[in-house]
């Protein structure tokens, strides 16, 4: 680092010389315009004065102000720092973009959102006007208008029902992928495909136009309904659609679990089988404890994914409210605040439920 500092300093000196020489050249150029004998004295006099007026303060400013404050500061904080302090400063410099982003793009907008949620915001010719209404927006959302509360209820039910199923299915699929079977590459490719291609518009198109239903002919339905009651068939058909949706959400959790499974030492399985354990007990005693820490991670991932998904009606509702004449930004930001706090509550609840407690026990 000292090398770098030296190079910076030499660079500064070079720029100083450069500035001085450029100024001199400029003076000479001005002087050359008057390059005739009668006014030669005048010319040199003017050059001297200009030099005095411009260059001397610049040099003085550089030598006495910049060099003695900034330079000293850098010297103090860098050359006199211990190795650990230097490492810490470098670490801060690496994380600096995130810190700036956190202050500028999270803390400030969040404060603005909180302020806006307590106001009626209206936009008139690019100017925002705020009317203080207190908690009126929250009151309207929670007790007067019905749409948001309904969607929130749906969202909670969906998250609480989907996430255990997603976790279970992804553990099963990860176990399948971890087996030594032929066509492993093909199966992996198929199971990771939804990670790549899944988006809200695609899923909406699929579910709106029956892309996820079972397509049965009347003939088959007639045969099945002679054995099974019609309601059971309906239930099965309805479940199939949900199952496809859930399976398509499984991509990244499968990936996480697979990565965890591959970390498990193969010799553990051998030792267990020599000791007489069958694969059922190996699963409960070895595999599940090994992948347990990933469950809470994937729970967080799933809830965040479901919340941010483009097909989520709450996101659409907030966007519509922002553009709605009777609601506007204040109402929408109050909605967003409620939604965010609810999501934090759900995630912390699920996280605490699925947290790995074994490490804590060992400590105690």
């Amino acid at each position, binding site marked *: 680092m000292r090398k770098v500092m030296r190079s910076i300093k030499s660079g500064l000196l070079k720029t100083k010389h450069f500035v001085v020489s450029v100024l001199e050249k400029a003076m000479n150029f001005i002087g050359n315009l008057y390059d005739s004998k009668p006014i030669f004295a005048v010319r040199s006099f003017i050059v001297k004065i200009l030099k005095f007026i411009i260059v001397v303060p610049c040099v003085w400013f550089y030598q006495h102000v910049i060099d003695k404050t900034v330079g000293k500061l850098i010297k103090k904080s860098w050359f006199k720092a211990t190795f650990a302090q230097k490492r810490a400063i470098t*670490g801060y410099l690496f994380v600096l973009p995130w810190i700036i982003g956190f202050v500028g793009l999270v803390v400030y907008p969040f404060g603005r959102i909180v302020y806006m949620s307590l106001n009626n915001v209206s936009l008139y010719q690019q100017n925002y006007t705020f009317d203080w209404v207190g908690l009126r927006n929250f009151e309207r959302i929670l007790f007067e208008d019905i749409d948001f509360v309904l969607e929130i209820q749906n969202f909670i039910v969906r998250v609480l029902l989907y996430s255990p199923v997603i976790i279970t299915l992804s553990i099963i699929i990860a176990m399948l992928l971890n087996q030594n079977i032929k066509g492993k590459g093909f199966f992996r490719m198929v199971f990771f495909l939804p990670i790549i291609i899944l988006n809200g518009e695609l899923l909406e*198109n699929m579910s709106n136009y029956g892309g*996820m239903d079972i397509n049965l002919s009347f003939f088959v339905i007639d045969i099945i309904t002679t054995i099974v009651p019609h309601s059971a068939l309906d239930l099965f058909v309805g479940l199939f659609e949900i199952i496809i949706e859930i399976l398509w959400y499984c991509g990244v959790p499968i990936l996480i679990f697979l990565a965890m499974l591959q970390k498990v030492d193969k010799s553990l399985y051998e030792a267990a089988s020599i000791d007489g354990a069958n*694969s059922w007990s190996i699963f409960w005693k070895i595999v599940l404890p090994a992948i347990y820490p990933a469950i809470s991670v994937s729970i967080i991932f799933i809830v965040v994914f479901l919340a941010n998904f483009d097909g989520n009606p709450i996101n659409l509702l907030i966007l519509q409210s922002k553009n709605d004449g009777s609601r506007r930004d204040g109402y929408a930001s109050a909605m967003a605040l409620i939604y965010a706090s609810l999501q934090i509550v759900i995630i912390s609840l699920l996280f605490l439920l699925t947290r790995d407690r074994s490490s804590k026990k060992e400590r105690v």
Partner: protein
Amino acid sequence: MTKYEELKRKISNKLPTWKKHLIGNGNGNGVLFKIAIYFLSITFAFVFIYPIFYMFMISLMSNTDLVDSTILWIPSSVYYQNYLFAVNGLSLDESYFKTVINIFLHKDLIITSPYMVEVRKLIVIIAIIPITVLFGGIYFENKGKLFGVSLFIVVLIMIFPKSYVDSLYVAGTTTLVTVFSSAIIGYGLARFEFKGKKLIMVLMLLVYVLPKTLLFISRSQLYGTLGIKGTMFALWIPSFMGQGLQATFFILIFFQFFKMLPNQIEESAYIDGANTLTIFFRIAIPMAVPAFVISITYGFAVNWNELFLTNIYLNGNIKTIPMLLQGLQAAWGSVADYSTGSDVVNVDFTEAKAFAGTMLSIIPLVIMYGIIQRYFIESIDKSGITGE
């Protein structure tokens, strides 16, 4: 009698081996177990693939086939007019090469998006060549090859359909910025000890948990006042600050990865006179290739599929594939003439057209995934994506 006893003995001798063959020794090496595994895998794979296969089959049907209840899977004849409509609706028939020529001929009317946006995009696309040569020069000796490859990529981009290129531009540049900044931040968190590191990690998780709908209102106002709303900087700046889509996920991947690297390599490089930046670019990044592959693949998919934020921040200046897919039904009226010709039956917007558009919209992603899939799966094996 003797024959019968012999047979019996033979059977009783062989029975245990059959049993063993079928069930195995309880460790999942029997035939039944294998059959169960294959059955489950194939079932799951079928359920995964089913919607895509169904959509493909439906998209080849004409309207008469759709209402015919006897036709379930296989269309009576391949009806490709749906795809012609979808190509028009997603504006895939226009290439970027054409647009560039139109820019220089000043035919503004033909260009749908604003003039300056196209020019800026052109600058960025051409800047791929020097950036690849300069940045890749750190890692590869052969600069001529780098130049050739990047030139080839630029030419490909010029020839490709325009809306694919637009999506690639939006998703690709944003992903690269996000992944690069995630690598920097993850390296800083993993390799250095400083005060407040734990706090930063906790805040990072908190930011990850917040839904994207929370901050988009005031962020878009902020971008409006900064004057970057409607330009790509509205996506690049938050990405560089570690606030892009799924950025925390990538930061954690890089954090895990850089934490696994042994300390001795860095120390020996330091003793040999390398400074921190040299260590980061010359040693840390080449060792983190699996993390880069995972985060670039996933980040590209996420950014490509993002609709909500790009719609708001880009102000409709650049139209990506999901936006066009959303407006496909609205586009039906304007391009109906192209697709139907003199066909009277097929004037309605049906699921076949929507599915054709959907199939066209996922094709580039599937091709990309097919190419990168092997490295992607290898990288999963190599890096521990667990997070803490």
